[in-house]
């Protein structure tokens, strides 16, 4: 992981009537890193994600990609991909169809879409399922298709919106390994939203802890454990991880 800044966010503000308000966020995302945004529901993490990818416009502040201001750019001009919790697949198409369809709208890859789609699906271990319909797949397989569809377009950054919330524990663990592998192989910058402390810590180069529309701490997992920035971080993150550890430790000793 280099420390070149890929994405730079300054003074990001969004006001809503209810929750999910953002109060002037400042942070950078490095090229090729795995950054988790960790916080409880309503802390503004999904709002941040939607602004980064261009589905929502901020009230104030800027988003720059490689030094270029993209705050008002269309979602498809940002070289970013997104993976949702509910997969958002095209259920009337096959596995291969889902990936190929997305490629049809890309001028560069359009002519090679069969080749590109088959290759990326193969890398995600889906080559046996190319002609299957989406509803014939398990949840974990569906999420792989969704990741493949995003990856096929070769984005600079992939955003994940709680991608594993709907999956069982075992599938989560195997998909975690897969994500790390993909990141190593493709070198893609990944921004990962989750409310699960363990998941954030297991996956990330750095973790950004959010609460009530503010950043409480942005640091490596080691640093957060060693030096929680405030009471919120130590309660919500450190304490929580410790409880999980303790409950396991009891059995380990016995």
């Amino acid at each position, binding site marked *: 992981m280099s420390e070149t800044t890929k994405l730079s966010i300054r003074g990001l503000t969004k006001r809503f009537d209810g929750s999910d308000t953002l109060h002037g966020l400042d942070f950078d995302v490095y090229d090729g890193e795995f950054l988790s945004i960790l916080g409880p529901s309503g802390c503004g993490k999904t709002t941040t994600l939607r602004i980064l*990818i*261009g*589905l929502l416009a901020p009230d104030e502040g800027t988003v720059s990609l490689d030094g270029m201001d993209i705050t008002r750019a*269309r*979602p*498809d001009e*940002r070289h*970013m*991909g*997104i993976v*949702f919790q*509910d*997969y*958002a*697949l*095209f*259920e*009337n*198409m*096959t596995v*291969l*169809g889902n990936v*190929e*369809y*997305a490629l049809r*709208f*890309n001028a560069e890859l359009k002519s090679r879409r069969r080749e590109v789609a088959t290759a990326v699906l193969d890398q995600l271990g889906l080559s046996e399922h190319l*002609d*299957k*319909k989406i509803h014939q797949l398990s949840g974990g397989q569906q999420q792989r298709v969704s990741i493949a569809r995003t990856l096929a*377009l070769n984005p600079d950054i992939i955003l994940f919106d709680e991608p594993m919330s709907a999956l069982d524990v075992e599938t989560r663990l195997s998909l975690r390994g897969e994500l790390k592998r993909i990141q190593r192989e493709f070198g893609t910058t990944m921004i990962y939203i989750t409310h699960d402390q363990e998941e954030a810590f297991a996956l990330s180069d750095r973790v950004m802890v959010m609460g009530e529309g503010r950043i409480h701490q942005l640091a490596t997992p080691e640093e957060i454990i060693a030096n929680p920035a405030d009471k919120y971080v130590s309660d919500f993150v450190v304490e929580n991880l410790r409880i999980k550890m303790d409950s396991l430790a009891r059995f380990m000793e016995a």
Partner: protein
Amino acid sequence: MGGGKARLTVTRIVLALFFLFAAILPLLGLFANLANPGAQAVFGTEQFITACINSVAVALTSTVIAVGLAIAMAWVLCRTNIRGKAAIGVLMTLPMLIPSLAHGMGLVFLFGSNGIITNLFFLDGSIYGFWGIVMGSVLYSFPSAFLIVYDVLKYEDALPYEAADILGIPKTHQFLSITLPYLRKPLISAVFATFTLVVTDYGVPLMVGGKCTTLPVLMYQEVIGLMNFDTGVAIGFVLLIPAVVAFLVDMLNADKGKLSFVSRGFAIAKNRVRDALGYLMSLGMSLFILLPLCSFAIVSFVTKYPIDLSFTFANVGRSFNMNAGDYWVNSLLIALAVSVIGTLLAYFAGYITARIKGRSAKILHLVAITTLAIPGIVLGLSYVLFFKGTFIYGTFAILILANLVHFFASPYLMAYNSLGKVNENLEAVGSTMGISRASILKDVLIPQTSETIVEMFSYFFVNCMVTISAVAFLATTLDMPLALLITDLDAQRLTECTAFVSLMILGTNVVLKLIMAGIKRAIRSRQECAVR
């Protein structure tokens, strides 16, 4: 993107103009006429008060019976082991395929002063009046109530019943304390839908009402017979009240949360007595529904009913001499035009409200479902007053427009619900990949909701074939739809021809339903094949 936005704006404007000129302004015009002293004078007359009482009594009685039968039939189909459930289910909805006038005719053929059953069992033929209307209205409204209850009962979870069995709670108790509370919301919907349907219908009471006059019949006679529009306006206003109440109750009653679709199916225990009762119930309902329909088939092909029952094709020729063929073509033209335009409009309205959202979408949604509260006969009268003297008066266009508004809400809701169920993030994902809304609509949403589109088309078509209410005041001798010919033929005592016309309408709708079932099957098998 720019082209897409422009198209969307055009769609919005078309929909706004449609509702403004086809619903809102005519109805406002109708209410303005209430200020006429002639209209206000109606409320105090004895004739009006009697009709009011008759209407309420008939509608209440019919509603209790129709909804009761609907619960019983739905229960039989969901909780017994009888065979042929699919066929029985389809049979239960057959009455939807004929005009309410024909329901009245069917009863006259069977139980009238010269009816088949009257003569067979030496009855006195006193079908005319209160109980005749109730019987016809139950036939006419039962399918709607049945579909509402059946659709919900089908998906009930078996788990609470298994728990109740373990706790030793008797079955009757289970029905009262689990089934009925579970059905509370659909039952409220069914009760109000049935009541509105019956209280605003003039077809059944016109045929079998005898001296028992109801509000819609009074309105029909005053407007058609005496050209007395003021009375029509006054009664129209009163008829709007139950419809509006029903609509409001339904809105408040609507399920806010999403239904969970993870429910355990029922393992139905063996029980001979229960199944025997189930067969008996199904047999009874099937006879109740099929006898009138069969009577059309018989009466259509006899020389002179009921004196000379020898077989003949003469009535077919006589019907066509009375222009039944031309009117059938009229009906087809109207039904096809409304189905095509209506499906397009309702689908795009549903697309805007379910997939784009925003403030204008909320208003559109409200206006679209409000059309459900306008009784056809009131809508028709408002059109007479609003469009009289304009270029579309007396043309096919006004009949098409009236039917579009009258039947808009249900297909709109079909589109809204079905588009709302498709993954909400599709457009967001698409936008990150450079896939426009229009492409998502064309390549993903329409293929995924194609069965709903077929259902919408079918709903518009069948209803246009059977409707008499919205078009009664608007049709001329040239553009009249076939269903309205029934009253003309009946007035000329061409009984056999009315039967044949009813049969034509039933046949047309059955053929359409078969075609639509074929299309649905083709869609399904194409999706199964997974062709890329």
